[in-house]
């Protein structure tokens, strides 16, 4: 009996030592995740929990944008479409048909995924800036359509009185944080898999990828669908948390927010956009607490983004990572910056 319980524990310890503690950036991510999980034990402040919940939801949204924009290079300016479709899909089913949120959130995310697939099809013919500018159009077209059917969509005011997922705030906290960690880990895994490699290659040179016998159409659509699935899930979680869904979830500002969070944090890394959200969103919230600053918070937000970019044009997360780690010149594996030789191939690092 005992053998069966000890071995997984030992394996877990091995995993932690060899996979997480080996690199400072991963240790940081581990400490961050642990901190989020333990936070309700130290503080029950509903406002703090609310900020972390919303940060988690937006982190899912920004990370899903990164899969599409950072990895496959299809820089979407209309990512709010998927957030809004997920939110509206879930909220409408819940409000008009009375289905339980647990089901409608999944359906909402699924609807967003279909939307992502459909938007991806015309975008196959476009690349670069054309694609960005064209994607900007889709959420606005949907907003126009929603305004013409106010009895169903609630028009400009949206729908309020959507049922919450759970009653307690701490409960929702764990759902949001758990969902964020799970989705971001999954996205990161996808990014580091074969699929992620192909998406990287498509961004760099699509013709070369096609010449290597890879069906780029399938991978570009896959990136769109998966990314929309993530964003739709975030939108549905958001709708059931604040219990209102309105056209503000489709606004240009929210689409641009994803771009800002993603690039500020560092693209094509998944943890970058998450870091971007967890730095910038609580910052703006904190400023709205101070009365003298609250009016200036968007202004300060924009100035902070500009100044940070001047010093870290690659984004915050890659900048921190490059300070802590060094890449082995021979085998390209990352090492702690203090090491003299690579921990895999023992080549001198400098």
């Amino acid at each position, binding site marked *: 009996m005992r053998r069966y319980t000890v071995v997984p524990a030992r394996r877990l310890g091995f995993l932690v030592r060899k996979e997480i503690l080996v690199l400072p950036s991963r240790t940081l991510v581990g400490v961050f995740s642990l901190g989020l999980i333990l936070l309700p034990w130290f503080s029950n402040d509903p406002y703090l929990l609310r900020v972390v919940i919303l940060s988690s939801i937006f982190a899912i949204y920004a990370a899903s944008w990164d899969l599409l924009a950072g990895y496959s290079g299809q820089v979407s300016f209309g990512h709010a479409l998927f957030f809004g479709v997920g939110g509206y899909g879930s909220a409408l089913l819940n409000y008009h048909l009375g289905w339980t949120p647990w089901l409608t959130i999944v359906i909402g995310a699924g609807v967003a995924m279909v939307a992502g697939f459909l938007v991806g099809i015309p975008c196959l013919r476009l690349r670069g800036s054309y694609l960005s500018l064209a994607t900007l159009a889709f959420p606005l*077209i949907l907003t126009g*359509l929603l305004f013409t059917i106010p009895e169903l969509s609630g028009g400009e005011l949206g729908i309020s009185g959507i049922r919450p997922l759970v009653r307690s705030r701490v409960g929702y906290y764990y759902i949001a944080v758990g969902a964020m960690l799970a989705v971001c880990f999954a996205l990161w895994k996808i990014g580091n898999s074969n699929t992620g490699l192909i998406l990287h290659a498509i961004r760099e*040179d699509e013709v070369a990828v096609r010449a290597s016998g890879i069906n780029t159409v399938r991978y570009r659509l896959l990136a769109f669908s998966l990314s929309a699935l993530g964003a739709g899930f975030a939108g549905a979680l958001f709708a059931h948390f604040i219990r209102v869904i309105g056209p503000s979830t489709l606004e240009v500002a929210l689409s641009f927010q994803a771009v800002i969070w993603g690039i500020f944090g560092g693209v094509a890394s998944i943890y970058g956009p998450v870091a971007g959200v967890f730095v910038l969103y609580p910052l703006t919230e904190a400023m709205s607490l101070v009365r003298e600053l609250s009016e200036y918070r968007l202004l300060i937000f924009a*100035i902070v983004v*500009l100044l940070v970019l001047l010093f870290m*044009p690659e984004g915050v997360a890659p900048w921190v990572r490059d300070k802590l780690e060094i890449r082995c010149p021979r085998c390209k594996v990352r090492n702690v910056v203090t090491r003299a030789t690579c921990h895999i191939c023992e080549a001198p690092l400098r």
Partner: protein
Amino acid sequence: MLQDILVTGLVNGGVYALLAIGFSLIFGVARIVNIAHTGFYMVSAYLLYTLLNLARLNFFLSFLLAVAAVTLLSVICYKLVIEPVRQHEAAVLIATIALGLIFQESLLRIFGGHFRGNPAILEGAVEIAGVSVSYQQLLTLAVVAVVLIATWLLLHHTRLGLAIRATANDLEVANLMGMNVHRVAMLTVAISAMLAAVAGAVVAPLIVVDPFMWLSPLITVLAVVVLGGLGSIKGSMIGAFIIGYAEVLTVFLVPTGAFLKGAVSLSIMVIVLLLRPEGLFGVAFEEER
């Protein structure tokens, strides 16, 4: 109704053309998708408002001052914010978004969020072929026409214009031929902001100004530019009038048209993109090297 459609479409189309050409120029020469472009338009409209109503200058002087100030502002922004991160495409993108936000928030703090109307500079209307056109609209059309022609002359009949077109066509070769591509880029930014400023100053008396007025023309301009083909001046001009008239027709003829205004013009853009991915007159850019 018909004359309303004709005149409003022409005025809107002209203003969109001014904005879209500037946007297109920056993209063509410096490969910058300048989200803050309509921000310059807004700043210029506000400056004109201030100079006219608070400093009590006459229209002509305020117009020149507003345009000059915005052009200067654009060069300062370019030098301080854009040029240091030019190597990083993504950073440039959010730098322009942040600039737009800074304009919006600064104006919101200085002038407050409410709508402010400018008095019409010229009262009265004139009858042209049975269509009543107000002098203000006529003035707008005249300014738009003059500026568009001047831009065309600049681009096609001066050495600077030649340099701009050459850089837009192939940056590396232009550089090898001895053109200072950095200076060309800076001058293009200035010209493009000047066009946006003219557009802002010219429409300010026709509309009400508010700190969020840059967003809706931004969307339209992006639609126009993609429709006409990124980097193509002719395309931007024709695209602007197509979108201008499409918007006006939707507002006047469809019952819930005001809501659908944006949706219709953007749908036109998407359909054109499906049929011709490089836009109506787009230069199919070679893969960047």
